[in-house]
C-alpha cells in the first residue's frame, strides 16, 4: 500500500504539495502512529480506487463528447434516430455500471470497517492516561496516576513514550473543541457536558503538532499543542521532573521576578506549584521553561518570545484571555528571568 503512483498523481495535481505531504509535523499522510498509519493506508487505497474511477469517468466524458460521429445534417429533437438496439445496449451498460459502483462501494466500506475496528482495538492496550481539558484557547493536560500525588498538570504539550498507547480523556469546559494530531491519529471532539476518549501512540520519536479542529472562537487559529514522543527512559525522567514543584529562584533578579509574579496580575490566573500561585484560569507554569512552545503552540519557546508574549499578548493572539498586564520594563525582565528558570 505504500503507493507511489497515486502519490505521484497527487503531486501532479498539487504542484507544490508533494514534499510536505510526506514530511510534515502536522500531516495526516506522514503517519508516526499506528492509527494514522492505518488511516493513511486506507486513504491511499481509497485514492487509488477512486482516482481510477475518476479517470474512467473523464475518459468516458472525453469520448462521449468528442468521439467521431457520422457527418451530415443533424436531425433535430425527436427526429433524432433513437435506435432501440443502442438504447438497449446503453441500458445494459447502465446496469453493469450500477453493479460496478455498488461493488466498489461495498469493497471500500468493508476496508473502512476493518480499519475502524483495528484502530479501536488499540484502546485495550493503553498503559498511560492523559486527561485533556480544552479551554479557549489552550489545552490543559493532566497526567493521571492511581497515586494522586503522582499525577500532574502541564499545558499545550503531551509527552509520551515511543510505542506506548496512551489513553486520552477529552473534556471541554467552555465550547466545543477538537483534538487532532494528524501524524498520530484522527480527531475527536471535546464537548462540554460529555467525556470523550481516544488513544494515541507514536511509533517513532519526534515532535508532532496538533491543532484544534473545531471552530471555537476568536483564537481558534492559534490553539495548537505539541506532542513529543521520546524513549521510555527519557519520558520517565521527564515525568519525575514534572512532578517536582517549581525550583526556587536562585539569583536576585529571579527572586524579584517571583515577587513580581506573585504580587501582580500573573497570580490571578496561573499556577506555579510550590508558591501561592494556584489559579487555574491559565496554563500551569510550574515547568514552563521545559515546554516546546508558548501560547498554545503560537510561538516556539524562547526567552525573547516569552517577553513578547507577556508584553503584548493581544498583538500576538488578539482576543486571547491573556491581558496586557502593564508590567514595567524592569518588572518584565525579572519575571522573564524567573519564568525562564522554571525548568
Amino acid at each position, binding site marked *: 500500500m505504500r503507493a507511489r503512483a497515486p502519490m505521484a498523481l497527487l503531486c501532479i495535481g*498539487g*504542484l*507544490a*504539495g508533494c514534499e510536505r*505531504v510526506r514530511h*510534515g*509535523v*502536522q*500531516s*495526516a*499522510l506522514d503517519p508516526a502512529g499506528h*492509527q*494514522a498509519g*492505518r*488511516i493513511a493506508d*486506507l*486513504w491511499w487505497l*481509497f485514492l487509488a480506487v*477512486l482516482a481510477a474511477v*475518476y479517470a474512467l469517468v*473523464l475518459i468516458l466524458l472525453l*469520448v*462521449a463528447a468528442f468521439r467521431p460521429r457520422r457527418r451530415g445534417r*443533424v436531425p433535430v*429533437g*425527436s*427526429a*433524432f434516430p*433513437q435506435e432501440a438496439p443502442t438504447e438497449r445496449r*446503453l*441500458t445494459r451498460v*447502465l446496469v453493469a455500471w*450500477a453493479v460496478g*459502483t455498488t461493488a466498489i*462501494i461495498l469493497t*471500500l*466500506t468493508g476496508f*473502512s470497517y476493518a480499519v*475502524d475496528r483495528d484502530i*479501536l482495538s488499540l484502546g485495550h492496550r493503553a498503559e498511560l492516561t492523559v486527561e485533556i481539558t480544552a479551554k*479557549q484557547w489552550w489545552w490543559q493536560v493532566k497526567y493521571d496516576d492511581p497515586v494522586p500525588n503522582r499525577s500532574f498538570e502541564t499545558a499545550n504539550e503531551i509527552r509520551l513514550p515511543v510505542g506506548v498507547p496512551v489513553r486520552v480523556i477529552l473534556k471541554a469546559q467552555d*465550547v*466545543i473543541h*477538537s483534538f*487532532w494530531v*494528524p501524524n498520530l491519529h484522527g*480527531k475527536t471532539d471535546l*464537548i462540554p*457536558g*460529555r467525556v*470523550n476518549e481516544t488513544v494515541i501512540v507514536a511509533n517513532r520519536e519526534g515532535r508532532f*503538532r496538533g491543532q484544534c*479542529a473545531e471552530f*471555537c*472562537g*476568536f483564537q*481558534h*487559529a492559534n490553539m495548537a499543542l505539541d506532542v513529543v514522543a521520546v524513549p521510555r527512559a527519557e519520558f520517565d525522567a521527564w515525568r519525575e521532573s514534572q512532578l517536582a514543584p517549581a525550583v526556587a529562584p536562585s539569583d536576585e533578579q529571579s527572586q524579584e521576578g517571583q515577587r513580581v509574579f506573585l504580587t501582580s496580575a500573573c497570580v490571578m490566573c496561573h499556577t506555579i506549584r510550590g508558591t501561592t500561585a494556584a489559579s487555574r484560569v491559565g496554563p500551569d507554569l510550574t515547568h514552563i521553561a521545559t515546554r516546546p512552545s508558548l501560547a498554545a503552540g503560537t510561538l516556539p519557546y524562547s526567552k525573547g518570545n516569552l517577553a513578547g508574549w507577556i508584553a503584548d499578548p493581544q498583538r500576538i493572539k*488578539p*482576543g486571547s484571555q491573556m491581558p496586557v498586564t502593564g508590567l514595567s520594563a524592569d518588572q518584565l525582565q525579572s519575571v522573564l528571568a524567573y519564568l525562564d528558570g522554571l525548568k
Partner: protein
Amino acid sequence: MSARDTSARDSARFIRRDGPALGEAETHARLERTWATPPGLWGWLSSVDHKQVGRRYIVTAFVFFLLAGLLALAMRMQLAGPNQTLLTPDRYNQIFTMHGTTMMFLFAVPVMEAFAIYLVPLMVGTRAIAFPRLNAFSYWVYLAGGVMLWVAFILNVGPDVGWFSYVPLAGPQFGPGKRTDFWAQMVTFTEVAALAVAVEIIVTVLKQRAPGMSLNRIPLFVWGQLVTSSMVVFAMPAVMVSSSMLIMDRLIGTHFFNPAEGGDALLWQHLFWFFGHPEVYIIFLPATGFVSSILPVFARRPIFGYTALVLALFATGFLGFGLWVHHMFVTGLPHLGNSFYTAASMAIAIPSGIQIFCWLATLWDGRPRFATPLLFIIGFIVIFVLGGLSGIMLASVPIDSQVHDTYFVVAHFHYVLIGGAVFPLFGAVYYWFPKFTGRMLSERAGAWNFALFFVGFNLAFFPMHILGLIGMPRRIYSYPAGLGWDDLNLLATAGALILAAGVLVFLGNVWHSLKYGLVAGDNPWGAGTLEWATSSPPPSVNFVHIPVVTGREPLWEEPNGLAAVSGLRVDQRELLLTTVVDAEPDVREPSPMPSIWPLLSAIAVTVLFIGSIFTPWAVVWGSIPLAVGLIGWFWPKSPPDTPEPVVE
C-alpha cells in the same frame, strides 16, 4: 363533494378541443388584461406573477452570491500568506460566517427555488404558480431576512460563529450580544420563505400540469424540483425548531443546549444536520434538473434513462435524510451507529453514479453542440465527480476522522456545491436567459466565463485537498509559517482571483446582453419542453392556449405546434387543474389577483421576527399587525361575477 366542486367539474366540460371561441387577437388581449400586473410602483409591490417574483428571487440571490463572493475574496486575501493581519480575527470570523450563511441560506437554496418559481409553471404548462400570493409573500420575507442579516453585518452585528452555529459557542454564554440572534432569525426568515415555495411547487407540479403530462412525461427538472420541495418540507422544520430553540436559550433562558441543566450541545448538531445534510441535496437535485434539461438539447437527443434518473432522484432524496451523522463522526457517538451512517453515505454514491452515467450516455449517443450551457455541464461533470469521490472518502469513519473540519472538507464541499450546483446554475442562466429576457447571452463571453471559472475554481480549491491532508484546519484566520501551507494557500488565492474574474465576465456579459444581446425567438436552442412553447419573455398569462402534451419533449414530438385546450375564462384568472397521475383535466380553479397584503404581511412578519431578537414580547405584540395582514390577505372578495362567463 361540495356544490362548488360539482359545478367546477361541470364547467370542465366547457373545455373544448375545437379552438377558441373568441378570435385569436381578442383572446390574447383579454387574457393580457386579466393577467397583467398593474403598472407603477403599486403594481410592482403587489405583483403575484410568478415570473416577476421568480426574476426578483434570481436577481436577489445573485446579489447575495456576489456579496458572499466578495467575502470569500477577503478571506483568500487574508490567507494568501502566513501571519497576515489584513483582517482581525473578529472580522474574519464574521466574514467566513457571513460567507457560508449567505451562500447556503441566501443564495444556493433561494436561487434554486427561484428557478423553480419561474420555470416550473412554464414547464408544466400552466398560467400561474399555485398560491401566488404566498409566493409573493415568500419573496418579501426572504428579502427581509437577507437584508436584515447584511445590515446587521455592516453594523458589526454580523454572526461570527460559523454557518452551522454550533452551541455552546453560539449559545448565550459564549456568543454575547445579538450577533447570533440575527443569524438564527435569518434562518427563520429564509426557512419560512423556502417552505412556502416548496408547498407551491409541490401543488403546482401535482395539480396544474398541462393535460396529457402524465407522471412519466414530467420534465426531469420538474421532477427534481418536486423531490427537492418534498425534502424542504421535511428538512427545514428541523432547523427552524433548532434556531428557535437557540433564540429561546439566548433570549429567555431556556436550557435546550445547556448540558449542565440537562440540555445537550449535540442536540443542536443532530437537529442542524438533519436539516443540513438534506440541504446539500436540496441544492444539488435542482441542479441535476438543470443538467437533465440542458444536456438533451445540446446533445440533441432525448435524455437517456429517464426512469433511472427519476428513481435516482427519489433514492437520493430518501437517502439524503439518513446521512446527517457523518457530519458528527468525531463527536464520540457510538461506533456501531457511525458504521450505519458510513454505509448510508456510501450508498448515496450509487444513485449519483447512475445519474452521471445517464448523462454521459446521453452525451455519447448524441451529437453535441458545444454552446456555453453545455460547457458548464461538462465542467459540472468534471468537478462534481471529483467532489463526489472525495465525499466517498469522507463517508469512511477513519478517513473522516483525519480530514473532518480541515481544508480537505472545504475543498470537498466546494467541489460538490460549486461543481454540483453553481456550474449547472451558470449553464442554466446561459440556457434560459433568452427565455427570461428575450435576448441571448454572448457565446464568446460565455466561453471566457467558463474558462476562467473552471480554471480559477480548480486552482483555488484543488490545493485545499492537500492543505487539509497536511493539517490545515478550516476556519482559521491565520496560520504560522513553516507548516508547508504557504504556497498552496497563495495558489488558492490566485485561483480565487481568476474565479472572480470569471464572475466579472459573467456580469459584463449579462449587462451587455440585456441591451445588445441577439434577440432570441421563442425557442432559440430548439429545445423540447413547454417553456419554449411560448414567447420570450413569456406573456403575463404564460400560455394563451393551454397546450396538450403527448410526450416528454412535446415540442420535439409535435414540431408543427401543440394542440390546445380551451374553456378557461378570459375575464377572470382561471387555471386548469388536472389529475395527479394522468393529468386529465379535472377542475377550473380561480387564481388570485395582485394584492398588497402579502407585502404588508411580510412587513408584519419582519417586525415580529426582528423584534423577537430583542424581546420575547415582540412575538405577542407583533402578532397583532400580522393578524391584520393575514385577515386582509384572506378577506373573501370574489370579483363581480359576470352574468355570462366569457371563455376562450
